[in-house]
């Protein structure tokens, strides 16, 4: 049962981390802080996991050691956002972010792989990431076999949004303006069951 007509308490990232440090989250919980609310991550299936593994290899092949790549790990955005993107392509740092979680200024590209979460990924998360100033955001939609590319965050939203079919390509600033085809991004997930 969801609580309707109520104002949910909103936490800051600092409070979220203090709750975790106090051991008040169950160990098995996979939790994100989205707009101040603590939510459970949607369980994912093999197609989703395989697509993330594919992207990890793809970015490593294209970008080599010029970036730091993290997969399904939290990033931190002021002040009420601590999501766990599927792939975060970050400025390379020698300490590999041991000292602090990556912040928006560290981000080159965030990627969410979506099957059941296409609508929130394309709407609510799009606005949250734009507001935080994430420069490039992809939704790899494995239920429709498309890639939605969001660029130029300004005024709380992305000014440049385009959806690409498998045979279509675009130039990605995070990939050094290299042209890439949606087919390459979808990889083995392309054409699978939706």
């Amino acid at each position: 049962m969801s609580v309707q007509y109520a104002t949910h308490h909103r936490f800051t990232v600092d409070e979220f981390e203090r709750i975790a440090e106090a051991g008040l989250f169950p160990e098995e919980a996979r939790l994100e802080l989205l707009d101040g609310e603590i939510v459970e991550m949607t369980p994912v299936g093999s197609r989703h996991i395989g697509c993330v593994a594919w992207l990890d290899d793809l970015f490593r092949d294209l970008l080599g050691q010029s970036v730091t790549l993290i997969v399904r790990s939290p990033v931190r955005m002021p002040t009420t956002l601590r999501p766990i993107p599927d792939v975060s392509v970050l400025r390379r740092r020698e300490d590999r972010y041991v000292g602090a979680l990556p912040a928006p200024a560290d981000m080159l590209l965030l990627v969410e792989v979506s099957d059941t979460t296409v609508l929130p990924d394309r709407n609510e998360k799009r606005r949250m990431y734009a507001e935080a100033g994430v420069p490039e955001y992809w939704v790899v939609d494995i239920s429709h076999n498309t890639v939605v590319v969001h660029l130029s965050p300004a005024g709380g939203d992305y000014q440049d949004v385009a959806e690409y079919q498998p045979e279509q390509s675009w130039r990605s600033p995070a990939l050094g303006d290299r042209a890439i085809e949606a087919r390459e991004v979808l990889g083995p997930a392309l054409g699978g069951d939706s």
Partner: protein
Amino acid sequence: MSVDFATRHRFTVDEFHRMGEAGILSNGERLELINGEIVEMTPIGSAHAACVRDLDEWLQPTLRGEAVVSAQQPLIVEFDGEPVPDITILRPRPDRYRQSHPTSADALLVIEVADSSVLYDRNVKSRMYARASVPEYWVVDLPRARVAVFQSPEGGEYRELREYGRGESWRSAGLGGREVTADLVLDGLGEG
């Protein structure tokens, strides 16, 4: 922006308390735990405050020696709730609940006074109290001048819901079978 697209994490009563003790929930906020979700209590308007005050003034002497009348104090509810009802009528206990907060098993009647929160009180909170088998629950709807009386909790719902307006009365099991008039509940003790 709402995160209704996702499943909110639910806290237990124990985790909720420990967050308070650790100073993570700031003291200035009025928070309730409802079905494991931490929600902010709506600010109380003057009509709401007066209604609670008059209910308390009426019930304290009426039930003295029979039950404990608790106004705007936390009640621990089975299945991860810790609401702060406007009025809770509790079974008597020798320590008068000094040793521990009352729980839903101690409650004979819970009353919520509603101005803007009426849908929430009628839908979400009624199911929470019914699940915890609180035998009787009233929602005093000030804007519509109605008192909704929920009784007979069974299978997570109240089986009986009756509404009363001015000029009507009912017998309340939670108040030892006493007759209650809607006028007294809605209009309080008057100016006399």
